[in-house]
Structure formats: C-alpha cells, structure tokens
C-alpha cells in the first residue's frame, strides 16, 4: 500500500539555487536517503522550481454572507491551485469578522476544508464602520490567534482611530493593514484612475494622491506610536516614494502589491469592462514601472492577491455601479513569473521572499515561509516556470468568473502544492481531503 503522505520529489530546482531531491515524510522535509522509501509517491520535478508554500496576505473568501460568490472551500481550492499554503481572509464578510467568535468560525472552516491554512484578518473597527475599535484583543487571544487587523475595502480614515489601533495591537504583536484611500479625495463612487482617461470616459476619478496622503499620514503615526504598519495593495509611485523614505528611517512599515497592479494598466478601462474595476484602480504605466522596481528592491515586501470574487450579477452593471474587485489566487505566481522573473527583475529567491517568507513574517504565521530544509514543515509549491499558458477564465476553482487574465498569455504553470506534507495540488489537480 502506498503511503499517501510520503513523497519523493525528484530533480526540482530549489528556489532557483540548484537541483536537489526532496523527501516529504510525516509532514516535514526529511533526509533524502540512497533509495526512495517504500511506498513513496515519486514526483518527477524535472524542470520545475520548488518554492516554500505561498502565503497570501490579502484574500476575500466571502463566507459568511456571500456564499454565491465564494466559500472558504472554493477559495481554498483556488488558493491550492495557485500554489498557496496559507491565505489571510479579509474581514469584510457579512457578518464582519470583528469578534473572536467570527474569527474562530472562519479559521475552523478553513481547517475543516484542509486545502490551505485560512488565517482570519480581524476588523479594526466594529462593523468596519470606522468609529470604534473592534475587540482586537479578544480576536488575538482566540483560537484563531488573529494578528493582522484591517478594515480593508474601507480606509481607517479617522486619524485618531488609526493611532489607537496602531498603539493597541502592540500588546500582542499585531499589525494594522491599511486600505489607503482618503475618502474626501476618492469617495465611494471613484472608480477610474484620475487622469486623461477618466476625463475622456467621464468616470469618477480616483487620484493617486488619495492613497499617497494616507500612506504618508499613517507612516508618521507608525513612527509616533512605534507600531507596525502594513500598507495593503500599494498602487502608486507616490506611495512607493514615501514607503522607501520610511524604511530608510527605520520606521516599521511593510507593504504589498497585487499581481494586477504589477501588470494591468488603466488603459484596460477603455471599453468600460467592469472586470477591470478594482479598488484601488488600475494605474498608468509610470506607476506600474515604479511598483515593479519597488518589489524588486524590497521597498515593497510582498505580493498579495486581493482575490475578490464577485457573482456575475454584481459585475454586469454599468461600470460605475459594478462591484470592485477581481480574482487573483490562481494566476498570482504566473503573473509574477511573467512580469518579474522572466524579464530578469527578480530571482526565485526574491519570489520566495515576497510570496512566502515575508508575508508569513508579517502575518506571524510561524509554520509558513520556512526554508526548504530538513526538519521544516513540508509546505511547498512546484512551478513549471517556462510553460506559456493562455488563461481560460471559465476554468477556475473559484465560484466567480471575474478573472482579468482571461484570454491573456502568462508564463508558468503551478504543478503541485503541499501543505504540511499533504499534496493539495498534484499534476495541476486539486486534491481535497
């Protein structure tokens, strides 16, 4: 009888540093002996790159509340298919994840599904209303062990509330992840990067400066409070400049960028296709170039998907009325390979840092983002870095189809994902427990 939890991975290129066999046994990476252990499943990884299992700092799983758009289970499958071993589930569900009970429920649904570690993000404010603090400490002490707090979807725009949140989470090593959008400069209607195109299309403008000013303000608050700040989905060159300055000062700020902000420009909005409606909006090429540079030089720490599934009927409205957001889990690594690794902007070690090591550190996930060494938890991802794939958005593990990469040619194909020694994806097939 074959042992389902023993795998011999042959010939994988370990984080781009050279070919080596890997033995997965009892959930950890084990010493490779002279012969394959009896009953081990042999995985031919010739030509594949092995990375530590990916960690996504920014996922929307929609459960509870919008199970027609995504569930913990379908989102987990999409994550496994994309090479992820852990995802942070944003708090803007219905009800909002603003209590210990709500956080534990999301956490437990994830464990029950078992494809990926689902780590809940707690809301900063009760009901995401931006008025008073949610029970941050109780969420932190809960079984879910919440460490990342965010009102994502909304900006914590009240400077005093932001200051208090930053101060308060210091007690348990928490971090506040800010959705930077000054609502007086970019209100809820703002949906297109403010510039020539928004002028011509007659769409409400979302100026980059509405992000920049919050990033700048919060960095000064982080300096003042000595707290950890994380900037979600950085989209502007202005934010990058401010973050670069802050890091040089030693201020504890980290930042993430999404695959779509690394690749898709605002010009996609030309035909009013709501698939490309996202918050913050797609930006011009000048911003994209700076985001890539910042990711490559470490100013931006992490790639995070902002995977945001939406039911068809929430997207098939007039552009200004359609829901914000696009899918990201399944294509994230392909996009990073296509726009960063293949052009020579990033090494695989840097990809491992940006998509696994740093996100795990930021989120405080001890078992993730570990080096591929003997004795470490067997969380890993195998990618074929050279395959060119035309993305078919109709084929997805997500319940939703708002895939901006549909029809796009991307380079790379995730072949396998392992979570604590269990194959959650093998030969591109998701393997449910």
């Amino acid at each position: 009888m074959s042992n389902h939890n023993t795998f011999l991975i042959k010939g994988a290129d370990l984080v781009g540093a050279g070919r080596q066999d890997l033995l997965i046994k009892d959930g950890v990476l084990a010493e490779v002996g002279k012969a394959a252990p009896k009953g081990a499943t042999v995985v031919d990884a010739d030509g594949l790159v092995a990375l530590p299992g990916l960690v996504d700092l920014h996922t929307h799983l929609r459960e509870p509340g919008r199970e027609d758009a995504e569930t913990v289970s379908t989102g987990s499958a999409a994550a496994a298919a994309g090479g992820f071993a852990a995802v942070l589930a944003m708090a803007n569900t219905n009800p909002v994840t603003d209590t210990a009970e709500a956080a534990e429920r999301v956490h437990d649904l994830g464990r029950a599904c078992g494809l990926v570690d689902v780590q809940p993000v707690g809301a900063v404010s009760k009901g995401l209303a931006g008025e008073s603090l949610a029970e941050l400490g109780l969420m932190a002490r809960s079984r879910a062990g919440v460490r990342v707090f965010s009102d994502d979807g909304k900006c914590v725009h009240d400077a005093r509330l932001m200051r208090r949140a930053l101060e308060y989470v210091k007690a348990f090593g928490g971090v506040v992840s800010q959705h930077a959008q000054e609502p007086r400069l970019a209100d809820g209607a703002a949906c297109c990067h403010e510039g020539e195109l928004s002028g011509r299309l007659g769409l409400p403008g979302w100026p980059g400066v509405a992000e920049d000013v919050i990033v700048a303000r919060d960095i000064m608050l982080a300096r003042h409070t000595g707290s950890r700040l994380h900037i979600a989905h950085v989209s502007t060159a202005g934010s990058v400049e401010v973050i670069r300055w802050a890091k040089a000062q030693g201020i504890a700020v980290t930042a993430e960028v999404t695959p779509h902000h690394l690749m898709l420009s605002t010009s996609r909005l030309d035909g009013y296709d709501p698939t490309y409606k996202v918050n913050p909006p797609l930006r011009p090429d000048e911003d994209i170039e700076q985001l890539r540079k910042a990711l490559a030089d470490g100013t931006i720490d992490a790639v995070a998907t902002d995977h945001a599934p939406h039911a068809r009927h929430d997207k098939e409205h007039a552009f200004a009325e359609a829901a914000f957001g696009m899918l990201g889990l399944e294509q994230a690594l392909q996009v990073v390979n296509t726009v960063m690794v293949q052009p020579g902007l990033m090494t695989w070690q840097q990809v491992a840092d940006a998509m696994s090591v740093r996100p795990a550190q930021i989120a405080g996930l001890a078992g993730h983002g570990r080096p591929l060494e003997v004795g470490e938890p067997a969380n890993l991802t195998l990618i074929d870095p050279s395959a060119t794939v035309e993305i078919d958005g109709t084929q997805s593990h997500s319940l939703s189809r708002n895939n901006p990469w549909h029809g796009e040619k991307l380079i790379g194909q995730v072949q396998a994902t392992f979570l604590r020694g269990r194959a959650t994806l093998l030969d591109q097939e998701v393997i449910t427990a």
Partner: protein
Amino acid sequence: MKHLLSAADLSHDDALQILATAEQMHDVQRREVKKLPVLRGRTIVNLFFEDSTRTRSSFEIAGKWLSADVINVSAKGSSVSKGESLRDTAMTVAAMGVDGLVIRHHASGAPLQVTQWVDAMVVNAGDGTHEHPTQALLDAYTMQQRLGDLAGKRVAIVGDLTHSRVVRSNLILLRTLGADVTLVAPPTLMPSGIADWSAAEGFSYGYDFDEVLPDLDAVMMLRVQKERMSGGYFPTPREYTVGYGLTRDRLRALPDHAVICHPGPMNRGLEITADAADEARSLILDQVSAGVAVRMSVLYHLLGGAES
C-alpha cells in the same frame, strides 16, 4: 456605423450626411402631414434609466414621424438597488424583438456595454458624464444653419466641463467638422487630465473667458448644476458669474456675427444673463426645434439602411 455611442463613431462624411439629411427632415417637420414611411414596421424602445423629458420626447417624436413603433421604457433608479443587472434589463427588452434601443443612463459607458449583449442598434441618448452625441449633432446643425460651414470656425465651450456629457461629444464632433475649439472653465471644473488630452488631440483650453471672447464665432454655455454650487468647485454663484458667466459686458465683447448656444436647461442669471438667451444671436430655441430633425436623421441612417 452600426450604433451611435460616441461622436467619435462619426467620420467627417457620416457627420455631413447626417446633417444634410437633418435639413431635409427639418423641411418635413414644417409640412402639415409630417409622417414619412421609412421606418414602418420597425420598433424602437426608448430605454431611459434617467429622466429626461426633453430628449425622450424628441426621440419619440422623431421615431413616430418616421413611422416606427416607439415604446418608452423607464428603468429609473439604480438597477443595482433593484437587484437586476444592466445585462438582464437590456436582454429582457431586446428579447421583445426590438430593432433599435435609444438609451439614456446615469452611468458613463452603459450604452456601449449594452451593445455587447444585444443585437439591436443602440443610440446613446446621454450616458453619465461621458457623451451625448445627438446633442452635439443638433448643436452643430444649428450652428451650421447660421454660420455656414464650420471648418475653421472658432468655438468656445464654457462651464461645468467635468460633469458635462455634452462637452465631450461637442468637442469631438466640432473637431471632426474642422472647427477650432477652446474649452473654458475654472480649473476645478475642467475634465481631469485636460493638459494631456488637449496636447494629444490638438485643441486648446484656458481659464480666462475674456481672453477668447472677442475672436469667437460661437460660444456654447453649459449649465452649472445646483449641486456643484455647494460642492466646493467654486466659492459662490456670484463669483462664478463674474468669471465665467455670459454677462451683459461679455455680450458686448462677443462679435456681432457670433452665435450663442446652450443645451439647456438654463440657469438664467448664473451662467447666462437673462437677456442673452433672447437676443438675435441666440440659437437656443433653434436647438430645441432642430432636435427632432437631427434625431430623425440619425434613426433613418442607422435603421433605414437595413431595410433596402
């Protein structure tokens, strides 16, 4: 040309043809029996997601005088709040066997989106703060009646350009017809990215109305909506009028041969002095009467051709 979604859909020849046909339609309009049989058996739905009595009735009369069956469907209010998607609404209406959809929507781009889901011909009757191509056609028509060929004519468009759907269509069409266009507004009411846009397209813009006034052949005054007045776009209505209103003093500075347009409805006393609308140089009532003729021409060109 299958649809009329943007003034940019019109080539120079298309535009001239539509304007020439509009002139013939205008003659029909003056007859006692106004009906032409050209769209008999055709069905046009005026699908209005936003109220506009003026535009809707103008399209309705235009369709009827061409003998089409015209049905008005009001889908007012946000479809989001009603739970029906734009696609569902459009497909439901189209499934009734409609030849043409005349769509007015409070959101930019909605008529263009609808063309992806239905086979019917679509005319944009105003979408959000994007375009209103038939308004531009009727403005050009009335200007042409008074000024002749618009090639080389100098036209200023003045007012709330950020929130106007008329300005984009007029700018595009007037330039297609060879006119020299200047946009005038306070910086807070200019379309975003105006510097790049004007440089790319080769038109001019400015903040000083008085500077351009003496050289104009036509001035088009756009409405400043009440909700902008308290929105911090400019300090007070009084200050706006001093800077950008077509005041008595400015009427004196405007050349005698120049014409005055306003797509309506006017805020008399704010962007336009009470006298201006009623003076001989004003085309404001001509604009309304040309509306039906121009829309007859558009419907004829889009739907009439397929029959023969």
